[in-house]
Every structure is written in C-alpha cells, then in structure tokens.
C-alpha cells in the first residue's frame, strides 16, 4: 500500500510522518503538495502535524481551503482512508470530516509530553493491531487539543462509538489528571461514522522507533497497513507487519 503525506505551508511534522511511514514502517510514501489536485494514487492520506498557515485565524481554518482538500474530501467520501495527526486532526474538524472543535488546552499553555491513551475500539481500520483497552504511550505537542463538541453531538459521538482513543493514566484509568488538555470525555482521537477517517492529537510518528523512547505509535500504522493490504491481496502479505502488541 502507498501512503501520501500532505504538505501545507507551515506543516512541520510532514517529514516526520514521511520518515516513520517510509523508513520505520517501510511502506512506499509520497509527499502531496497542498496546491495540487492529485492524490497520486495513494491508499491512505495522512494530514500531518504542524501549524498550517501559521494556524492564523483559527487552527486548521485556512488549510481546509487548500486546493488539495477538495480531493481529500472526495477521497474520504469514496471510503478512502484519511489519518489526521494533531494539526491534521484540527484540519479534519474544520473540513467537517470529523465532528467537534478544538479549544486551547485547559492550562492555557502549549504541552509537549508523553501521554497515555487507551484504545476504546480495536475493530477500526486504525486500531486492528491493538486490543481494546490497550494503553499506548505516545507524545502530544499542541496548544489547541482540548476537544469540544456540543452536548447533543457528544452524546451521538459516544452512542455511535466514534471515540477511538481516550487520555488515561499508565494503568488505563481515565482521570482528570491524565486528561492534560481538558478534552471533553478525555477524547484523544475520534473516527467518522463510516470508520475510514481518524483524527488524533498524539503523534504516532514520534513513537515509532525504539531509539525515541516508544514504539507504541506503530500500532496505528500497522493497523492501517494490515487493513488496507488485506483488501488488496496482490500486495505484500500483511501478516508480516502484524504488531507485537497483543
């Protein structure tokens, strides 16, 4: 399978995602320029972290108007897989591909640290290589990661089981202290109803190599590879990429 990493002006985790996917996960990966109209035949679009358009006006608000986003929206509507990491998640919210919005962190400071997130649903294409309840240790780095949705919308999100990751402590308990940015329902990552679009604030690309202190982020990439390569039997057998996480 082939990954495509979108480059907005101001993206700064674009090369990190590229490195993690092409080197750590050893999958063909291309960069996708925001001004183009061509997804170059990728199987999964990754919207990387950073400060697209400086995050001026509002996080993700300008990036959603990039020409390539029309293609990404159409791709998602066709069932194509889209992964938004950090700023990429914020762009997905602005695009309306995912519900909700981001507020400033509850302590009104940028936060860069390792956090724990609990896998709420291991049946998605983004979490198949993990198990339900598994705790992943992955870094966050954001100022606006305090997830918000109106009460009714939040209820719907929960009812439909769209919450894929929640902030928790090392033992998997969801606590106020572990919910460092103050997200409603400690939401760290959600999917769309169809299950082909996922946004999360933590950075799996920063937790894909042992040298960097954690390999827990690989579970997400491995899940995608497993899900997408299984559907395309002509490609490399997915079993080899299966995680050692169970």
């Amino acid at each position, binding site marked *: 399978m082939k990954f495509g990493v979108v480059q907005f002006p101001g993206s700064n985790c674009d090369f990190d995602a590229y490195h993690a996917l092409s080197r750590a996960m050893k999958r063909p990966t291309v960069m996708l320029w925001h001004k183009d109209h061509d997804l170059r035949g990728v199987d999964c679009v990754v919207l990387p972290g950073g400060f697209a358009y*400086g995050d001026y006006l509002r996080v993700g608000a300008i990036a959603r108007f990039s020409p390539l986003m029309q293609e990404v929206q159409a791709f998602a509507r066709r069932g194509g897989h889209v992964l938004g990491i950090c700023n990429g998640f914020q762009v997905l919210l602005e695009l309306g591909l995912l519900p909700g919005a981001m507020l400033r962190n509850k302590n009104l400071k*940028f936060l*860069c640290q390792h956090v724990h997130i609990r896998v709420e649903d291991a049946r998605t294409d983004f979490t198949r290589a993990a198990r339900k309840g598994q705790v992943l240790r992955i870094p966050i780095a954001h100022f606006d990661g305090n997830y918000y949705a109106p009460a009714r919308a939040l209820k719907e999100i929960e009812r439909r089981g769209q919450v894929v990751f929640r902030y928790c402590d090392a033992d998997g308990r969801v606590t106020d202290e572990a919910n460092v940015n103050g997200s409603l329902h400690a939401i760290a990552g959600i999917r769309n109803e169809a299950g082909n679009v996922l946004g999360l604030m933590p950075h799996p690309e920063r937790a894909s190599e042992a040298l*960097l202190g954690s390999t827990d982020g690989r579970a997400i990439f491995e899940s995608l590879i497993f899900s997408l390569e299984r559907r395309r039997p002509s490609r490399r057998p997915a079993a080899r990429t299966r995680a050692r996480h169970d």
Partner: protein
Amino acid sequence: MIDQALLDQHNLTADEYRLIVELIGKEPNLTELGIFSVMWSEHCGYKSSRVHLKKLPTEGPRVVQGPGENAGILDIGDGLVVVFKIESHNHPSYIEPYQGAATGVGGILRDIFTMGARPIAVLDSLRFGPPDDPKNRSVMEGVVSGISGYGNSIGVPTVGGEVYFDPCYNLNPLVNVFCLGLAEKDKIFYAKAEGAGNKVLYVGAKTGRDGIHGATMASAEFGMETEHKRPNVQVGDPFKEKLLLEACLEVMDRGLIVGIQDMGAAGLTCSTTEMAAKSGMGVVVDLDKVPQREEGMTPYEILLSESQERMLLVATPDNVAAVQAVFAKWDLDAPVIGEVVEGGRARISFKGQVVVDIPVDAVVNLCPAYTRPSLPPGPPPPAPPLEALPLPEDLGAVLLKLLASPTIADKEWVFRQYDHMVQINTVVLPGADAAVLRIKGSPKALAMTLDGNALYTRLDPRTGARIAVAEACRNLACVGARPIGVTNCLNFGSPEKPEVMGQFEQAVTGIAEACRTFGIPVTGGNVSFYNDTEGLSIHPTPVLGIVGLIEDIRRLVRPGFRAAGDAIVLIGESREEVGGTEYLLAQHGLRAGAPPAIDLEQEKRNQDFLLEAIEAGLVRSAHDLSEGGLAVALAECAFHGRGRIGCEVDLRSDLRDDVLLFGESQSRILVTCRPADLGGLLGSAAARGVPAEAIGRTGGTWIAVERSGRGILRVPVAEAYEAWKTSLPSYFQIRT
C-alpha cells in the same frame, strides 16, 4: 547639519565621526550617518570586545568556518557539518518579553539556515529575577511563551538549556538562544556577493518601521510626524519564517544562488554592505523596489528597519526566474532590488536620487576597536570560616530546600511548553545533562549543552569561566559525547565601566584557557554589553554552548539510576569548598567566598576516563555534580531513572557533613555500574590517576547517606521528588 546632539542620538563619538569623514572623504548625510551608527555599534562592530576575543582558540581539524560568518561550522564526518551559534536577545526580552524572545529565536534560526543548514535544535539559557516577584514571573512567562510560540510553530525542537534565578536579573533578564543546524559539507553557503552583474534579490516579509532605534529624529528634518516613532522591539511571524526557511533551503539545495545573508540587526544596511565587502565588490540598490509595509518611509527608515523574516540573495541573471519560481511556490515574492558592481561602493538610490554612496569596506571592516580601561576584579567577599557557619541539624531538610530552590528545581514547567520532539531526532529529552539528537541514517549522534554559573563568575570571573567550559564538557561526557566545538554568549554590564571590562577580560582569559586544555575551538558567539539597569550591572554571565559528538549512539548513557543493586562510584575529589555554593546561598543567605577551584588537567583526565569507560560499556548511568553538590546529584539520579530508585551511600571523608553533602567541588561525576564491573572500573581509574571510589549502591526508596556507618541524610525519594517537581509550578499556579 550634523552636530553633537545628532551624534549622541546615534551613539557615535566626535572621534568616530572624524574617522568616518576621513574614510568616506566627505561629510555623511543623515542616512549615511545612520548606517555607520548601526554598523559601528557595539552590537555589530564588537568595538570593546574585539581585541580581547582574539585570545580565544579558533582552530582545529574539524573547523570549516570559525568566527566571522553568521555561524561556526564543524565537520562531523560522513560529508556532514554542523552549523551553530548562540545569540542574546536580552534587552528586547525585558521590554516586551514575548516578542523579544520570539524574535531572538527567529534571528538565530536565520543565522543557521542562511548558511544552507536545516536547523535541528534550539537551546536557551534564561536568567530571571527570583520567581517570588510577580514582575519576574510575568517576564518569565512571556519569554517562555515567546520561545515556545516561535520555535514550536516553525518546527525546530527546543531540546534543552538552563534557567537560573538571581536578583541581579530583576531588571535585566538574559535570553540567550543557541541553534544548531545540519548540512552537507559541499552545500554550505556564505554571505557572498560575487560577480559583477549578478542580481540582488529581496525575499521574505515586507519592510516596516519596526526596530529602527535611531528613528527618534526631530520630525522637522524628515518632514514626518513624531507619532511615526515605533517601539524598538520587532514583531515575529514564525509562519513567514517557516516559508522563508523552506524556500531558501530549496534554492540553495538546487544551487540556484551565489550568496545569501539574513537581515538581522541593521537590516538591509548590514546585509548589503557585508555581502559586498566580503567579496571585495560594490552594490547598487534601488530602495523603491524594496517591498514596504507602510507608506511614506524614508530611505533612513528602510535601510535601518529591523523587520523580521527577511533575507537578501545574490543570483546570476540566468537564475533569477528560477529563484523567483521557488519563492512563488512558497507564496513569497523575490523582487530584484539591486545588482553587484565593481568598485567596492554601496550606491543606494531612492526616488531617482542617490541617497547613499559610501565605500563598503569602511562600513564593515574599519569600525574602530577599543582597548577600554579596565580594573582587575578584586577578591570576592570572603565567606565566613566554616566554624562560624552553624551546621544545620537536619540535613534532610536542607536537601529538600535545595531541591526546591528555583535554580535547582525541575524545569518541566518550562520545557513542556516547548515542542522538544518535532523532527523526531531527540533521543535524550530536556532535563538531562545534555540534549542528544540522533542523525538519521547514521550511528552518530550530537550532544549539546549550555552552561554558565554566574555566581561563580561574579565571585571570580576567570575561575567561573573556566568552570563554565569544564562543566559543559562534563555534561557532554556524561552522555558519552566528546566535545568538538564551542560558541559563547558573553553577557556583561557596561564596557565603559572599568570593573566590567576587568571582569570581561578575566572571563575571556578563563574561557580561552579551558578551551585550550580541552582542545576545542571557539567558532563564534556573541557579546552582549550594557546589561545595566538603573546603574546596576548584572553578574558577569558568560554562557558556553558546547557541541559534542557521540560516535555510536548505542553507547549513549543517561543520568538516571537504571536498576537496583548497581554500584555507585564517585569520580573526582571532594574538598572543603563552600564558596559560591547554592547551599551557602539557600541555607545561610550568602553570596560569598571563592568559587570552587578547578584543575583543568585533572578535569580533562576525569572526563577522558569517563568517556573511555562509557565506550567500553562499563557505565550504566552518569551525572555530573554541580549546584547542590553530591546530595542533589544523588537525588537527581534517582528522579531521572525509571521507577525512581533510591540509593544507599556510605562515605569516608574528613569533611564536615554539610560540606561533604552540598559542597560544589569541581570535576566530579556520579556513575553507576554493574557490581561485576566495579573492580575493572576502579582499577582503570587508578591507572589513569583519576580519583574514584565506590560509595554505595542503588536500591530502596530512600536517599540514604552515611559516613563511616553513621547516618547523616535520610530522605524518602518520593518526598524529595515532590519538593523538586512542584517547586517551579507552584509559583505559576493560577489563583482563583
């Protein structure tokens, strides 16, 4: 037209003015005077420091570029170089903490990428007044947010640094920003303007009136209204800089340009004249082509503006279109504003009139250097004899007090506001002895640290400066890195005060001596004088930024205890030294005494021994002893390890208990090893003339120290951790 009052406003002396007239063969007009004023300022011209900085060693086998360019360059093998430098942004950061610090980051980043290197790490040395004063807290919050706001957005990790507190920084905080970039050796670029007929391109943000420090002229002479005065602090736009960074690296990578220079201090003036002077060429510039943010700007303002995020490029006429296409891709304009010419003169026109016509050499290279009067520093205020200092009854309480002192306490409150992981190279996160970054695709890694204990330099500038170099190298050794090069930021008071010049001379001597002993070149740096507010000078504060190389990242060592049951070894000798210590300050309220002595040769032996032991795989953890001495170091080793393992230590010594626990004798390192390796480690230390003794083992939940079997310190790790961890945040808690 030019009188003494005008010269005073431009900080030029009558003698300097006479020299200018002689060099350019005419009376300068106001714009030309403005150019000399900034280019011959202390900041750009190093008038007071130049003669002394010559003492620093600048050569070595790795040196590709020493002082004189935007940044120093060292060869790290495999066709790669590191480009690094430190800069101060002290004054702006006091006036407007957020923007002052942010533009400090922006400026040093441009210094690095203007040479063709991608910036991969930022470190900051920050000094504030004590955090119990709300004014100091507000400055600190602003500075940290500014660094965070700029560095995080542009995507360069802030991986380490230091934060110190002392009342001498109440009205004059220090913000020193270090940046390191990585480049291919054959793709380095310099500030050259070669080749007559080549085009000069202006890229980046538009020019505004921000940062024109001379723009307080009488309005009559300009025909301008006084409300056009602007604050002297510039405003940063990290998004613009990110675009500029990518576009510049792209045109350099594709070999589309001849030379490049950032517009930092003195803006367009500095970049045009420096590029021309370095190539022995001249330059013509048409100011009407300079993109301007506001209307009605005078040539004086356009030339001296310090608007951020601007660069000047020189390209052959053939390549201009290709360069402009790259910038257009990044939504940036790149207009041609001038041309390189023969003749060594800068000829600048505005609305069809030549407004500047001066020889570039005079502006750039002929700034006078002064040997200012200096007064050697006197002896430090003596510390009372030890007998006169009461021995605290509860040494555990002293340890807790030291761990909670803002200078020693955990700095996570600061560094978790910085994205320290972006670019996914950061292997050792902030808080350890040195930051460590991998080099993708290579077994090598880079280590870097900033160090300087200003209380030591206040008490004895030469010893303090030697210690700053030694400690930085020791920090590198603790992660297994050999030092390869130095940049320094010398923060001092007014050079017109003889006692300040005395401190400066002594400190530079100390740095030079230590760098020679360690065999490391100084490849550049920055001098910040005039750190005086209301007549008070700061402590002399040299900050050393030292870069180290780890040949094999698998040999990396960290400060934290790894497992229970490891042997703890203390390398180095503990002596009766309490002068200048945190203990003396925190417990007895004294800033006095001679700082600890340092034997540079012994220091080097100790570090070399540690490095060899690490390379031989004998060392499980290593941490240097600094502020707070042995007891604080033991506690920090416990905090940094996973599981926060405690220790049981038994010391043999003639020193008084407090001196033994909290003295700051230099050249000491705490290491742990497997019990089976202990004999080998101690044997090889003895063979090398390195004092080393086994003092205990890791394990348990206490920091427990005995001397010859008698308990002198016993504190639960959890309690010590709490004191260390919660101290700094407690000052900043939002009170509702």
